[in-house]
């Protein structure tokens, strides 16, 4: 159950009075203003809103890529807004899987090597890493493309590799920033079906920023972000 009133307790992701301000020259930009959010494990949340409304900023804060100006973010009991940069990096490796609009694969690594990247930070043996990578690449339907380089894959396939990379270390939740933004309709639908399966069959928690209403339709909850405030869609 997704809530934005800040009254819930014990949710997986708990955001309280989150503020984010930027200084641009002499002007202060107040991107997020006292935002509250509660997301339960297994929820699939879509964030929508006009450009510049702070969707990506919110995602960056939730993923520990940026630090809030005020307020707290607590994930699975860890208050990440209080962690040092070094601890935050380690926390990200353990808890967050990122899916980007532009896939952001390393072009000189094969699909297998790209997916293996997060696992290199773990203590898994080479054989164990291989097993994990093969499993997730099979899950995203790319078992036969493991040794292909990103340039040898279509956009949809690249995004599947990116999703495989995001889930391979079994993170606590996934953050997807416009995951279908660079894809044609058919590929976009395939990616959304895959994310659907991750949520419904594998009980993954997904927070997604999107401009695409068809993609947002699949979410359990759609939240609109406007002028730094979250509003639950009717």
């Amino acid at each position, binding site marked *: 159950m997704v809530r934005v009133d800040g009254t819930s307790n014990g949710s997986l992701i708990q955001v309280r009075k989150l503020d984010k301000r930027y200084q641009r020259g002499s002007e202060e930009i107040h991107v997020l203003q006292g935002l509250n959010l509660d997301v339960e494990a297994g929820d699939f949340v879509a964030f929508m809103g006009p450009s510049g409304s702070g969707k990506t900023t919110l995602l960056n804060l939730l993923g520990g890529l940026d630090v809030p100006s005020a307020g707290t973010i607590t994930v699975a009991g860890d208050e990440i807004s209080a962690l040092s940069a070094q601890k935050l990096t380690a926390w*990200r490796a353990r808890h967050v899987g990122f899916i980007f609009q532009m896939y*952001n694969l390393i072009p000189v*690594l094969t699909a297998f090597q790209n997916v293996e990247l997060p696992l290199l930070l773990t203590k898994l043996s080479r054989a164990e890493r291989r097993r994990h990578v093969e499993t997730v690449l099979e899950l995203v339907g790319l078992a036969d493309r493991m040794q292909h380089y990103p340039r040898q894959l279509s956009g949809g396939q690249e995004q599947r590799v990116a999703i495989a990379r995001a889930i391979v270390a079994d993170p606590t939740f996934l953050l997807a920033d416009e995951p279908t933004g660079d894809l044609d309709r058919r590929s976009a639908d395939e990616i959304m079906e895959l994310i659907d399966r991750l949520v419904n069959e594998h009980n993954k928690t997904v927070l997604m920023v999107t401009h695409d209403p068809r993609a947002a339709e699949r979410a359990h909850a759609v939240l609109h972000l406007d002028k730094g405030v979250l509003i639950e869609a009717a």
Partner: protein
Amino acid sequence: MKYFALLWANLKRKKIRTTLTIGSFLIALMLFGVLAAVHAAFYQGIEVAGADRLVVINRVSLIQPLPLSYRERLLQLPGVKEVTHASWFGGVYQDERNFFPQFAIETESYRRMFPEFAISDGQWKAFEGDLQGCVVGAATARRYGFKPGDRIPIKGTIFQGMWEFNVRAIYTGTRQGDDETQFWFHKKYLEENGPDFFKGLVGWYTVRVGNPDQAGAVGKAIDARFANSSNETKTEPERAFAAAFVKQMGNIELLLLTIGGVVFFTLLLVTGNTMATSVRERTAELAVLKTVGYSDRFVLGLVLAESLLIALQGGLLGVLAAVGIAPGLSQAMPGMTFYLPTSSLVLGVVLTVLVGLAAGLVPAWSAMRLRVVDALRRV
């Protein structure tokens, strides 16, 4: 090791650029190696000089001879263990370009004075027994195909006429850097067949002292012994004598250091620029690495390791090339032995590592400080 694939893949990203950078390291280290070999060739006499040996020359100049009679007087001085002498012959074998140093030596003591030159007893005996016999260094023997039993004509320039010698022995150096180009023959042969102006004279003496710590005092005693005579002496440790000899040719060390310094500084700029470009191009990728949990320090290490790997590949190839080139230089410049001393090999590798790290430092630092949010916004 598990990160090697990532490291290697990054190097293969721009193959031409990486190859050219490796190539610049190769050329620079090859040049360094060749300069080190040139340095060794000039300074080898200094490096291998005996600490217990003194060289006694005429105070006027090296080319002024000393009386043969000084030998016994030198031997009588306290602290002097052994005395031998040699005289520069300056002959030409077939062609003036065929240079190798020829010395008329005192047969009896010369071998004992210079034990670093290895000669079989049988060959030495054959040399001693033949007034026209000669001993040839292995490098000169190889160069002209001399072997025991050969008869060699040498045209005298100081001591006019055609001189015939029989090769009786080949000597080899026992240490890296020992000069294997020399040619020795009996002073007695020169004495009996040479011009009157050189009779009873020698070029210089080499003296062995009993205690190397007393070498300075013994040297002073020698010069004092012959002070106010018609042939005053100048005695120096063999090392100082060799150094003075090299100094006559100019400050080679400064020249080599200057060239080497300029080359390495240029290399630093070239590699630094390459690494900076490489990091700029990969801003988004480095941000992704940080996003998935790679630490700032890891990214710093990754860029430094890339720079180091480029440097080491080029550097090691360059040093190997220099090792291969050195013998060719010896062939091209007769009379000198070019080789790459182990210390220079190690220094070359150390310099490679230092330049590799220094060149990668600034780009690595900027990669480390890269903010993920800013970098991803640029994608």
